[in-house]
């Protein structure tokens, strides 16, 4: 079965979490809007939309963008998209509700800050929103990754092994569903941590969770993948730190410099977890450590770190995977909602 984007179809057996492709998160992005002083939060869902999943948002699932403003990896602000059933014209209406404080963790009450219809960008006061089908902005050589990192025989020589040193972008043709919200920086705060979740409407149980790309895919295996999806970022270091260090040690050993030291592993695990995208809203996004713009090659940076490329004193990181030799898609836009129009 295909694995889609950075976090696509990542439960054991590569099935969607809880067999719900409509609750399966592909990617999360955080970046500055084109207009000054504005920040964009985006979450893509529905892997293989149109072929594997119907491009319909679930009505028993809430699509949640979580923001931590205090650095404790606990959300104290959230924007939640809730969808009405599909209408006969093929659209769904939705609301975006803003929750603050404890209500961000337990999203009851809240303030509806926007209403919209799928497929059409909407503006409500200072808030812009979008929900619906777009071109998938994720770019990655999935096939080479599966050989070089997951250890599957794919008949590849590694990354960048195609004619002219190119890679193969698996995602260039794919579409995705996306929820996007753009607000003034002041609505968020300065230094923030962001992650996406899909939660059950009935009891707020977390179905899928994601911050940076491929964290769950690369570092966890078996039942830990499900546990990670259902977990909370604040617990990530305690529960999954050992997994991260073990994988980092294994892959960095392939580097000619040998594996990271114990202290280096601790440092890196502390950066990679909790699985939250950190961002300073006063700056331009520049993944992986400061936001994630649609064109940021965050997964290449992660691959480099995983394979021993992080330059500690006395370690230059040569010999690690430098990248996958595929780049950003050409259909990104400079205007809201920034993701390209869907392929057809």
């Amino acid at each position, binding site marked *: 079965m295909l694995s889609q984007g950075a976090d696509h179809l990542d439960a*054991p057996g590569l099935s*969607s979490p809880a067999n719900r492709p409509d609750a399966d998160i592909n990617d999360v992005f955080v970046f500055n809007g084109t207009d000054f002083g504005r920040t964009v939060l985006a979450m893509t869902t529905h892997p293989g939309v149109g072929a594997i999943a119907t491009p319909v948002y*679930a009505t028993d699932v809430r699509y949640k963008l979580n923001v931590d403003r205090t650095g404790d990896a606990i959300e104290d602000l959230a924007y939640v998209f809730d969808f009405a059933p599909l209408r006969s014209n093929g659209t769904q209406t939705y609301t975006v509700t803003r929750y603050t404080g404890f209500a961000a963790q337990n999203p009851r009450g809240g303030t509806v800050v926007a209403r919209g219809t799928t497929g059409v960008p909407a503006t409500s006061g200072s808030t812009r929103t979008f929900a619906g089908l777009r071109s998938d902005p994720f770019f990655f050589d999935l096939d080479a990754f599966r050989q070089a990192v997951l250890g599957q025989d*794919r008949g590849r020589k590694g990354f960048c092994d195609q004619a002219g040193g190119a890679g193969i972008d698996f995602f260039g043709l794919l579409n995705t569903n996306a929820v996007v919200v753009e607000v003034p920086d002041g609505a968020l705060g300065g230094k923030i941590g962001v992650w996406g979740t899909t939660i059950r409407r009935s009891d707020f149980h977390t179905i899928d969770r994601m911050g940076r790309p491929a964290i769950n895919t690369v570092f966890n295996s078996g039942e830990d993948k499900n546990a990670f999806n259902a977990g909370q970022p604040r617990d990530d270091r305690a529960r999954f730190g050992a997994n991260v260090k073990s994988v980092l040690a294994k892959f960095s050993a392939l580097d000619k410099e040998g594996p990271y030291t114990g202290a280096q592993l601790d440092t890196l695990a502390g950066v990679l977890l909790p699985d939250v995208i950190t961002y300073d809203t006063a700056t331009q996004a520049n993944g992986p450590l400061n936001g994630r713009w649609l064109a940021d090659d965050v997964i290449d940076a992660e691959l480099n770190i995983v394979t021993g490329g992080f330059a500690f004193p006395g370690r230059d990181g040569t010999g690690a995977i430098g990248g996958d030799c595929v780049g950003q898609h050409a259909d990104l836009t400079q205007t809201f909602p920034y993701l390209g129009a869907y*392929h*057809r």
Partner: protein
Amino acid sequence: MAVAVGTAGVVAASYLGWTDGRAPRGRAHRTGDGAVIAALPTDRAEVDRLIRGFEAQVRVAPNVAAFDFLGDLYLTRGRLTGDLTAYTQAAAAAERALAIAPRHEDARAVLARTSLALHDFSRARTLASEIVGDDPSRLDLVAVGGDASLELGDVDAARVALEAVASRAPGAASVTARLARLAYVTGDAAQAAALAARAETEAASTGATGSVLSFYPALRGSFAFAVGRYDEASACYERALRLAPGDRVALAGMARVRAAQGRTDDAISLYERAAALVPEPATMAALGDLYRIAGRDADARAAFATVEAVGRLQPAYGRAVANYLSDHRRHVGDAVDRALAELRAGRHDVFGHDAAAWALLAAGRVDDAVAEARRALRYDTPDPLLRYHAGMVFAAAGDRRAATRLLRSALALSPHFDPVQAPRARAELRRLEKGEA
């Protein structure tokens, strides 16, 4: 009916890659106000677009990920269209992946699912069991093995496999639907109906829409029809067709209901819609029968010619063609060959023995037919066509008591189970009852 429910089972097998989540979706979507919409990019168009794109990619840069995805896309196209050549393409994509990476699991999984769709059940079971041996977490392949076992007539192995999947994936509609079919084959129509109803609820509650969801009411329709509940079956198929107007299984099912209700013109137009999507032999044979009843002999001849032509091209339709030939007493030697070939290939399910019994009777080999009919009856499957065939076999063998009991039971289950065969059952029963008096 033997053919109808059998087809639904095979379609189910290829359909639900297995988890509802992973199963591809149909082209129509249920809406809040109950209407059907077409404004979203249809799955069919999207699947075709992706197939074109990835075919172009592998011409330039052949790679396993693309061949895997192509395999899945072709399987989806096969499910959406009923076009069996799509499965051949899926197998070819998987073989390309295996040429690059010989033990590659996902490609072997595509081959297992393709074998199932093309009725090579022994191979499907072998492939599925090898993959599960390498990777016990592949519940989807455990389910494929269960499907193959059921089609091979090994109901015990099917039950073990399906219950194992059910216990590890509780509430999965596609597994519940398979257990429903198992219950039906092994003689429990009430349990089959209850499980199918549960499966529909499970599927709807996990967000299934379109032709994935429509599969479930269509399955319920086939069970309701088999036990003569025509109004209930009609409501089920209506629900299915609201979800997916192009669901050919539901179209053919609804056609069968309309024929049973005496609404021949409606039945013809429904079969015609199903046949326009894909001229499956069982559909074309039923359509030809109705044309003949309506006095449209030229149309009937064309429909029957299609059955034979398609049957020659596609070995997967062997059983359906054998039943057609036996019904029409045409090329009965060929019918026997086709039916026995399936048994020789290891397919010992009750409908296989039923087809063999019916063909052997048509060919005048009554003793052999009796032996096969006994095997077909071994689970007392509540299928009127199967019981009717057996009744006719026992009548020919002079076992009036068994014949009478079986024909009565077929007509009691479903008085109008087939517009041509049910009147024959009634006539034979009258003849037997007169003889008794």
